[in-house]
């Protein structure tokens, strides 16, 4: 019988799986229907919640392997990787998937090294060909796609958020909850403090379904309020180009591009962004791209689905009014 497809749970540190897990579990179930084997969730946490477990079942996990231990928080790769490896060695899943988040990118790399397995990181598509899994990954600043395959199971991969179709959610579908025995090693590193970013009330860049982004055309840091105001109407995150970040207008964590965050929202709106290769590398897998720029020759128009050639200081407020009208209906 084919082994299970495991999905390592990314949670909000309060006992609730993040919404990206609907995508990871949805993709795992789609592949399981071709490969055989059940879809299962593996949850390492200091505290799970009933609601969280229920949610994983509704998103398609047939079973949750729950390791609940105070030593698992805060996340430390050196603690998590041995726990995951022990479970993999005991249960032999055919695949282990994670989401592209800061901690899962790291722990999956550690897990792969520990198991001597292959890891395809930041995958944007998965397919089964002749019973084998093929991963598609953007490479060279997103200029090419690389199709990759593994020499043996388990197939390890991290999935880019907002790319895979989320599980529909079956109300009432419940996962069996197993609590396997696992050795949680003592950590070497210790948390000193966690500095929370001042909350903008807007969603996190990598997870946002809509992203509003600004570049050099904004002319100064004070003008980002125009985009923030628009973002509030849309429930969008606000990003920036490298030019805007290097000018000191926005902190680094807001940079979209090759030396910043890679995003894949349903809707991307770029204001005063020319569309340098290194920016495109971070957003070209967005589903719908809109560009507003007064230079009709700006390269971003080449990949934009919709463009407005005009002054962003006039277009952005006009768009805000139109979106407000539409969304308040």
């Amino acid at each position: 019988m084919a082994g299970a497809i495991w999905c390592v749970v990314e949670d909000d540190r309060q006992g609730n799986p993040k919404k990206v897990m609907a995508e990871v579990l949805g993709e795992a179930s789609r592949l399981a229907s071709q490969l055989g084997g059940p879809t299962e969730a593996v949850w390492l946490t200091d505290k799970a919640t009933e609601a969280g477990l229920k949610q994983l079942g509704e998103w398609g996990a047939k079973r949750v392997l729950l390791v609940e231990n105070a030593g698992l928080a805060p996340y430390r790769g050196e603690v998590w990787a041995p726990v995951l490896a022990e479970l993999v060695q005991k249960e032999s899943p055919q695949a282990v998937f994670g989401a592209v988040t800061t901690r899962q990118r790291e722990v999956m790399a550690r897990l792969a090294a520990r198991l001597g397995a292959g890891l395809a990181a930041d995958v944007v598509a998965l397919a089964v060909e002749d019973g084998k899994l093929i991963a598609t990954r953007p490479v060279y600043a997103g200029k090419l796609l690389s199709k990759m395959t593994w020499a043996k199971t388990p197939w390890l991969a991290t999935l880019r958020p907002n790319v895979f179709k989320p599980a529909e959610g079956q109300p009432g579908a419940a996962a069996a909850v197993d609590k396997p025995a696992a050795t949680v090693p003592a950590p070497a590193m210790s948390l000193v403090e966690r500095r929370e970013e001042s909350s903008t009330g807007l969603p996190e860049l990598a997870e946002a379904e809509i992203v509003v982004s600004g570049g050099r055309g904004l002319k100064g840091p004070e003008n980002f309020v125009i985009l923030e105001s628009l973002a509030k109407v849309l429930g969008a995150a606000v990003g920036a180009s490298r030019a805007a970040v290097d000018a000191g207008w926005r902190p680094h964590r807001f940079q979209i591009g090759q030396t910043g965050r890679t995003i894949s929202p349903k809707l991307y709106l770029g204001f005063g962004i020319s569309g340098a290769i290194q920016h495109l590398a971070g957003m070209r897998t967005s589903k719908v791209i809109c560009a507003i720029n007064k230079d009709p020759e700006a390269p971003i128009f080449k990949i934009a689905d919709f463009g407005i050639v005009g002054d962003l200081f006039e277009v952005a407020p006009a768009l805000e009014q139109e979106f407000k009208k539409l969304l308040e209906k």
Partner: protein
Amino acid sequence: MKILVMIKQVPDTATQVKISGDPKAIDTAGITWIVSPYDEFAVEEALRIKEKRGQGEVVAVTLGPERAKEALRSCLAMGADRAIHLNDPTWEQADTLLTARALAAVIKQEQAALALFGRQAIDDDMGAVGAAVAELLGWPCASWIMEESVDEAGKTIRVGRQVEGGLEIFDLPLPAAVSAQKGLNEPRYPTLKGIMGAKKKEIKDVKAADLGLASEAPALSVVKLEALPPRPPGRIIPGDPAEAAKALVKALREDAKAI
């Protein structure tokens, strides 16, 4: 304190990248090669640690073909003391795992106190080597660091690690591995003196056998490279700002169903 910085030579962002006759590889003709930008942050930070402590050694390490020596030379020009080049045909098809094994072996042989990496190389964007090396060595690691300080005794490194929604400050006992995120520092440009001095510094070639490593098949390999599927042609929306905004919102709702 001995610091090893792992770097990779990659095509410049702006360079044209084409698939070669072998669909698994790119055509390397005419490519401008650079040190991957995140690795430059790592080199810079290693130099700053050494300068602050007033002692120590910074060693730049790469795994790659002969041309990768140029990248090591750039690191030497920035100020690294010497370089190690893992240069062996057996690593031509090396994936993350085999690369990590080779690097872990060098770090062990050199008895480094700190291993610095870039967050990811900007060619394959895998971003896994640093954490994989840490795992193979049994070391703690912190990825995507935005700040760091090594204590006076050289026993602990305190790092600020970027995570969703904030920064986590951790103490890691040395030896440890960390990977640099943008924002950690502003890399220096090599001075003319640095460039001249780099020519005299040692770049040691190391073969797999020198590290006691046998030739192995990769765990993950490229089936083929493909060009991006073309995006459907875009539409420029005409009109004054108010008209264009109205038409765009309508198109996003009715045609693209994006909102």
